[in-house]
């Protein structure tokens, strides 16, 4: 059973503008499968539909047509939610809670039993290197620290599949390295990882396969395991895919 299965998924945004509806395409007829244990990257320019795809899978948006499954559960579905760990593109947290409280809160929501939860919180705080700051309120946290809290909350219920939206956007080089190491560690644990980014060099370092989105359509899937010089080749493929036909890159 594939971890993620998307069939003909379409999402059209409708906005009322002086009573006249205006439509814009989120994604169009998307088909995709991600295997268990695989690290899959969605690559695309801003507005190409990366976040839309992830939100549809998480049940934050509802599809206009088509369907999507997570481990066989048709989304949106509460059972599927139990299998998912999610980190949004920027860490949106309650600032009045401490690191420990917020992880505990999400753990409770996911139904992790009390004893197991406390043990898991200690483990995770250690993993993301926040043990010392566990009782500090999030108001006092830097962006990198918040991102690490985000990772911890995404892992509290031991999910099978992780969704990371623009994981490293806005982080400093140290933060980026930390995140990459964390991802590789999760990969070792055989978690399925579904991430989106527009930074090719980072995707190349962690992903097994990459899907390239352009204006809401999945135009190409690249298996990085078959490429030799991943960085350069992917960049070339990406640019040639997303650039309008007939336009050449002057290097």
């Amino acid at each position, binding site marked *: 059973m594939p971890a993620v299965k998307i069939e003909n998924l379409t999402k059209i945004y409708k906005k009322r503008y002086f009573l006249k509806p205006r439509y814009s395409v989120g994604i169009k007829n998307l088909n995709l499968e991600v295997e268990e244990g695989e690290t899959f990257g969605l690559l695309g320019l801003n507005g190409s539909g990366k976040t839309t795809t992830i939100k549809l899978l998480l049940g934050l948006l509802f599809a206009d047509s088509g369907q999507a499954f997570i481990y066989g559960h048709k989304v949106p579905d509460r059972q599927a939610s139990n299998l998912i760990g*999610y980190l949004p593109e*920027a860490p*949106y947290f309650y600032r009045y809670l401490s690191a420990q409280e917020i992880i505990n809160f999400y753990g409770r*929501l996911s139904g992790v039993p009390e004893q197991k939860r406390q043990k898991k919180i200690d483990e995770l705080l250690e993993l993301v290197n926040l043990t010392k700051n566990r009782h500090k309120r999030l108001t006092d946290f830097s962006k990198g620290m918040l991102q690490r809290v985000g990772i911890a909350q995404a892992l509290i219920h031991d999910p099978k599949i992780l969704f990371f939206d623009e994981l490293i956007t806005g982080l400093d080089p140290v933060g980026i390295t930390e995140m990459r190491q964390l991802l590789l560690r999760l990969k070792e644990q055989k978690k399925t990882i579904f991430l989106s980014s527009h930074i090719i060099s980072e995707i190349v370092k962690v992903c097994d396969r990459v899907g390239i989105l352009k204006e809401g359509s999945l135009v190409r899937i690249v298996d990085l395991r078959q490429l030799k010089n991943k960085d350069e080749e992917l960049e070339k493929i990406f640019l040639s895919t997303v650039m309008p036909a007939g336009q050449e890159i002057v290097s």
Partner: protein
Amino acid sequence: MNILPIAEYTIMENIRSKIFYILLLFVLIMIGSSLVFSSLAPSTEARVITDIGLACIEMFTLMTGIFAAVNLVLQEIENRTIYLLMTRPLRRWEYIVGRYLGVLVILCFNIVTMLCVLMLLLKVSTNWTLDPMFIWSAITIFFKMIIIIAIAMTASLVFTSSVTAMAFSFLVWVIGHFSSELKLMAEKVQSLLAKGLLYTLYYTVPNFQIFNLKDKLGIPEGMPMDVIALVLLYGITYAVILLVIGSLFFARKEF
């Protein structure tokens, strides 16, 4: 059932915000200032302090309650903290009910605190004795909140604008207190259209006047206990309907 953790963090959110304490302090000062007013009306001091005190408690709870309620969900959508909640195995109606109950607990705490201060003030400054109707009038203030908070919250989900929702709730509050007058008008008015409109308002807008025991404190026959019980039941039913409507709207919401 995930209602409890949601209610708990809503309470925490309020307790940890400084503005909450500043407002509470402000009202306690207001209640205290009723002493000054009461000195203007000799031999009715206790009545004046009671009236000002209960009015302050109600207005403060109303303002903070409506403000909190319309922002409960909208703020979370705006701050995008809603993303992480909605990707958890949390039913959407559980979220709505949890948020709602959390605010109610805070408002209940506010009312009790202010009521204690008011009773202390009355005891110290006048020869006041506790009348059970006094406690009932405080309880019915809370039941008014049970309704108006549900209205404010549901309005915020329907209108998706906190200003509109606040204005709407406020309007309902006013019409609700005017309810009995509306019925009297409806009976008198000639035009069929106006009659229909007035009756519709009378039957759809909650009748807050029946909860207004604080204005009935001096009334000889008071209000029989079984009617009070019916009134409380009415309040709860009304709130539940609104929460169901709110949940239906929220269930279709995209983030």
